[in-house]
């Protein structure tokens, strides 16, 4: 069509040498573009922040992993926990920035001495965002539904026997056996309280009792949270919080630089460097997390990694400090399955220090030589980038292991590695907290079956006091690590970069739990 028009335009003019003619189109395009850009910029140069140097009534936060729907009872993924728990939905209890249990909808609770009976005392005057009162009945209904419909994380409430209410403000849970992680489990999805009488489309809407309500949700793109006027506690400091999701790191960095977002979490340590230097405008902080980069080894019989010597050789061959340095140096070395924010943590990094000679000796004992080198395949999801695979390949090559790296889509990883257990080595970021029990499950994809670990884990979980629990779990974790059931490459620490005017943004574990009520933003004048 355009061609036709330019053709028609040309044909009207008499012929003759017009050297400039072909350029007209080009010049026109450039001119129009410039005009549009500057015209629009002039028209659109409205201020983004608040006036008078006071706190803004809106703050925009840039995150990475986007939820695909809001159905927190059915859909896995930490991005849902991150944005909904503590903001839109609340549980009986919540966790603080050190991963300890604190009151939420229950203002207090009692635990019987035998650890079998939990009595929760609910707050008065709590309503859902639709105006319905939140009573013990809703709590019981939520827990009943969780168990009967086997919603996500239902299995985290182990040994649960009865769920009952006594009056409108007391909920009683009884257990068949003590369970030392019950309270913590209730801080997550399992403990969330939903409105029994509300009708809404769970995938796109949310009705909770938290300080915010979901005003708008665009899957994979953004969520707008607005203060819930019916909230039982103090109103959040910033009435509107917009969360935008950036899958691409460059776009995310540009968004922070151009002021489209005031906070970026997470940001790669290296990408944060320019912000770290620009102290006049930005603050860069690093928080603790429970993310464990687990180099899973297939412990099941029939795999080269079923041989403990091979697994030990791999652990000795890996130079964790170098892996961490290449990522920007903020992550922590992690020698075992339990990170510092979880119960039972113990520094196990000394168990397998980097030692190429020891690794080679172990491989020799296991029967691998230069002529018959050990060949392994590492399968991991493409979300973790190719760098870490390249480094492992290079480090294992130094001790004579021929590593093939297979980077696949996450769903393929789920099928091949997680479900079918068809792999030698696997890499995944197990970001869940309190997930040590995966080592006592012989059916889990690690194929790790150690009776001592299973017994100790059991004892830890059934302990009635925290000290016993921590000691038993630590003991079990040490065995898992000594057995070289896997290698723990690093404990990922979250780097958050934000505008200097932002306060109250959680730093620890903010990829799984991000309460926003305390966030405030005061734009620079």
């Amino acid at each position, binding site marked *: 069509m355009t061609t036709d028009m330019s053709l028609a335009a040309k044909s009207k003019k008499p012929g003759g040498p017009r050297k400039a003619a072909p350029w007209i189109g080009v010049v026109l395009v450039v001119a129009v573009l410039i005009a549009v850009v500057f015209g629009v910029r002039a028209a659109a140069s409205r201020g983004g922040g608040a006036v008078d140097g006071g706190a803004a009534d809106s703050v925009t936060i840039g995150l990475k992993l986007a939820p695909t729907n809001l159905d927190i009872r059915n859909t896995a993924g930490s991005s849902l926990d991150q944005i909904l728990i503590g903001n839109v939905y609340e549980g009986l209890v919540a966790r603080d920035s050190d991963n300890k249990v604190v009151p939420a909808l229950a203002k207090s609770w009692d635990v019987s001495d035998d650890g079998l009976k939990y009595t929760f005392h609910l707050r008065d005057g709590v309503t859902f965002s639709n105006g319905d009162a939140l009573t013990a009945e809703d709590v019981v209904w939520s827990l009943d539904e969780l168990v009967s419909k086997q919603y996500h994380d239902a299995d985290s409430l182990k040994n649960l026997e009865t769920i009952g209410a006594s009056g409108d403000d007391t909920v009683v849970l009884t257990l068949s056996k003590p369970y030392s992680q019950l309270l913590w489990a209730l801080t997550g999805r399992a403990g969330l309280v939903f409105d029994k009488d509300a009708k809404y489309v769970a995938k796109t809407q949310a009705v909770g009792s938290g300080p915010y309500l979901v005003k708008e949700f665009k899957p994979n793109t953004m969520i707008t949270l607005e203060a819930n006027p019916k909230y039982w506690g103090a109103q959040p400091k910033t009435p509107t919080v917009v969360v935008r999701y950036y899958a691409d*790191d*460059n776009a995310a*960095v*540009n968004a922070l630089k151009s002021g489209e977002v005031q906070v970026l979490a997470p940001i*790669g340590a*290296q*990408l944060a*460097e*320019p912000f770290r230097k620009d102290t006049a405008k930005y603050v860069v902080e690093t928080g603790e997390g429970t993310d464990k980069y687990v180099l899973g080894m297939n412990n099941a019989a029939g795999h080269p990694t079923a041989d403990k010597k091979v697994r030990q050789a791999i652990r000795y061959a890996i*130079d964790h*400090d*170098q*892996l*961490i*340095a*290449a990522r920007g140096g903020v992550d922590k070395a992690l020698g075992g399955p339990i990170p510092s924010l979880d119960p039972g943590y113990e520094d196990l990094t000394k168990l397998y220090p980097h030692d190429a000679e020891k690794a080679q000796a172990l491989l020799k004992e296991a029967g691998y030589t230069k002529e018959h080198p050990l060949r392994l395949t590492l399968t991991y999801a*493409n979300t973790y*980038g*190719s*760098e870490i*695979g*390249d*480094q492992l*390949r*290079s*480090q294992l*090559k130094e001790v004579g292991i021929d590593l*093939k*790296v*297979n*980077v*696949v*889509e996450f769903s*393929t990883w789920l099928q091949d590695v997680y479900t079918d257990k068809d792999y030698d080595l696997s890499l995944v970021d197990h970001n869940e907290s309190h997930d040590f029990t995966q080592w006592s499950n012989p059916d889990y994809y690690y194929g790790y079956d150690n009776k001592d670990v299973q017994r100790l884990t059991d004892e830890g979980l059934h302990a009635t006091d925290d000290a016993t629990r921590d000691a038993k779990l630590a003991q079990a974790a040490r065995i898992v690590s000594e057995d070289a059931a896997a290698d723990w490459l690093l404990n990922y620490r979250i780097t958050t970069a934000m505008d200097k005017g932002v306060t109250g943004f959680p730093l620890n574990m903010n990829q799984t739990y991000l309460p926003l009520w305390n966030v405030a933003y005061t734009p620079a004048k």
Partner: protein
Amino acid sequence: MNRPDRRRVPEAPARIAAEHGPRGRLRRAGVVVASMWAHGAGRFALVTLGLWILVSLVSLFWTPRSLWETNGYAVWAKPSADHWLGTDGVGADVFSWLMAGSRTDLVIVALTVLVALAIGLLLVAAMTSRAAALAHGSVVLIDALISIPTVLIALMLAVPLGASVAVIVLACGFGYGLNLARVARPSAMLAARSMYVESARADGASAMRVFATHIVPNVMPTLVVQCSLSAGTAVLAEAGLTYLGVGVPSGVPSWGHSLSTSVRFINIYPLTVLWPGLLVTVVVVALNLFGDALREAADPLTNPRLRGDDGHRRR
């Protein structure tokens, strides 16, 4: 371009290619290369592509540093005597990776063009076939399948195959093959309805023979340019698909790999992303120029030296 000989009524292609036999073909090839060399653009293309092949061969035996020499403490280093183009995100030598990447890209381009050409010619043959069902069916097939983007085919292929060179070759070869057929359709249709074809058919020539002697020469100029474009596009597609994570697998050196590993850090280390981008651009330019130059040099209508037998040397 507008030399006087353009005005001559073109002879039937079959007559110009009268020289048969291996010697004649060799002489023709020599003339074609010499004619390409005579122009700056052709020379640039020949030199670049020659260098590309040479570097690919050398990289099989030697690179300045080993590809697997990583150093977590020296990532994103600036160019130095040790690392001519600096290091990447794991401390490996960028120059060595680019060198080794050239062989992967070379293989990808060669295979892609072969697959595309095979599919393209097959479809052209089907479209110009006298069996109406086949002819119309193939047209519809092309229309239907061409609408599926290459990237999408690659994404779907990548699910069973994983990220691999085969994904790029098959997806691109398939897509470009359809494209070749589609672009060649007008000239192929015109040729199929020409007097030459009618008289050849009247003479009792087989369908194969008609296709080979009348239709292929007519679509060849279009196909050659398309193939060289496809070769260039294949290099670009390698970069794009590898960036999307379905192209060259991790651990295999390729220009797309070098490009996409540095892309994330363009804000801090823009220099690292410069080299693979420039390299890809230069090579794709060379491939595109090569197609143009080859068409000019191999077409007797535009290259008087191929018509040496009629005794005139123009220019």
